[in-house]
């Protein structure tokens, strides 16, 4: 088994349509059902949703003194909105979780294996 980070990205190209209260409820239910299935199949290690980049703070202690600045790290187009850490047999297995998650949350997902976690 290998552990993968499925990171959910917001991007201007994939800005979801504004949703009604009911649509949001339905989406939450779908996400919860998918997470329940991940747990049941012993695939889910951890998951989290992040607050917006507006509330991000950058700390830089590399230059000797600590510089604290407001805002996200860089003016990137895409931002990390949340992530799943899953356990999967191989990339295809991880990609199928990513595909279903992307369908649920309506955002693209980047899949990367954790380094040094091969084998088991």
């Amino acid at each position, binding site marked *: 088994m*290998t552990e993968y980070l499925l990171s959910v990205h917001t991007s201007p190209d994939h800005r979801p349509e504004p949703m009604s209260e009911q649509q949001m409820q339905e989406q939450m239910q779908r996400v919860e059902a998918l997470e329940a299935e991940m747990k049941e199949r012993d695939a889910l290690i951890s998951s989290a949703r992040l607050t917006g980049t507006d509330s991000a703070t950058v700390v830089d202690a590399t230059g000797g003194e600590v510089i604290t600045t407001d805002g996200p790290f860089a003016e990137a187009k895409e931002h990390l909105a949340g992530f799943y850490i899953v356990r999967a*047999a*191989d*990339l*295809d297995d991880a*990609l199928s979780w990513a595909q279903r998650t992307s369908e649920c949350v309506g955002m693209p997902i980047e899949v*990367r*294996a954790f*380094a040094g976690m*091969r084998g088991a």
Partner: protein
Amino acid sequence: MVGSPPGPDPAAIGRIFREESGRSIAALIRAFGDIDLAEDAIQDAFAVAIERWPDEGLPPRPGAWITTTARNRGIDRIRRESRGRELIEEAAMLGGEEDGDTDPDSEAVADERLRLIFMCCHPALSREAQVALTLRLLGGLTTPEVASAFLVAERTMGQRLSRAKRKIREARIPYAVPGEAELPARLSAVLAVLYLIYNAGLGPEGDRELRDEAIRLARILQSLMPGEPEAAGLLALMLLTEARQAGRLAEDGTLVPLAEQDRRRWDQGRIAEAAGVLAQPTGHRSGPYRLQAEIAAVHTAAVGGEATDWGRILGLYDELLALAPTPVVALNRAVAVAEVRGPGAALELLEGLELDGYCPFHAARADLLRRIGRGEEAAAAYRRAAELAPSEAERRYLGARGSTIDA
């Protein structure tokens, strides 16, 4: 008795290895779970063959000999580099004993090439990486050979290959044939890679070896997936395209259009092979490669340009257009319409096709305009086509056509 040695010379050994190495490397990747180790082991086996085969002669089953020898050398490497006990145990699963000198001729090695081809063409890899890996691992080309086929610096190709292999290892791209649900999409990526290799060999420079390699790989795929109409279709399409290569250019290097080609120069062996492939029963309905192959087969079946069964070709283009509604298919269908219903009807179909930068569009339009007597417009269209021609041969042909109208 003194005379020439009984075995093959190094050049012949190189050819045998290239022919057999895809199958051996596929088995070794399965055994070792490590592409680099499998490649190194094959290289070791090659060194042994160069030393022994010239004197001892060719083993009765060279492919099995290569796999067994490479496996044993691979195990030696694991021991030397102490890459771990686990790998050795896995390697022992590849038939025979862990320790060494099993009789290569008694071993039946499972054909793992289908796993290999699906791994090489995995959608998580870029198309460039898919092509390079397929030629390197399955085709047995060296890195410099792959580099020169795609006019890329050797260093760049080396980096591309090692990056792709690293991604396979790190992301754990599976060494497996995809399940039924994913198979259609995954197979179409494999077919696209093989067709791209073939077409890369068709360019103005023309690389016969690359085309032969694409055909060889398509043959392997078709033999491994005999029920897939598209695998058969792609092989037949390549064979029929290749069969007509000899008639494509006149002696002065000018392009000869299909209708005027000397059909005696076509390769009847390849045409017959394609017919055999298309005649095999397949599981499900046709796809774009098979339809294109059937269209090519109608052309090659005709004894002369006038004897072509255009009604059948138009029917096949109707099917193809329904599956792949692209402007290029619509253009080719219009050419068939011209033969069945006349150039006027075809010309109407060209209206609205967004192919202004595409040489064959203007060439077809020029031909239709000429046939309905609109000479000035035809000449202008030939000029535009010649400007856009991708090769000197086509430019010459189109230029000549245009000037006969001007006169």
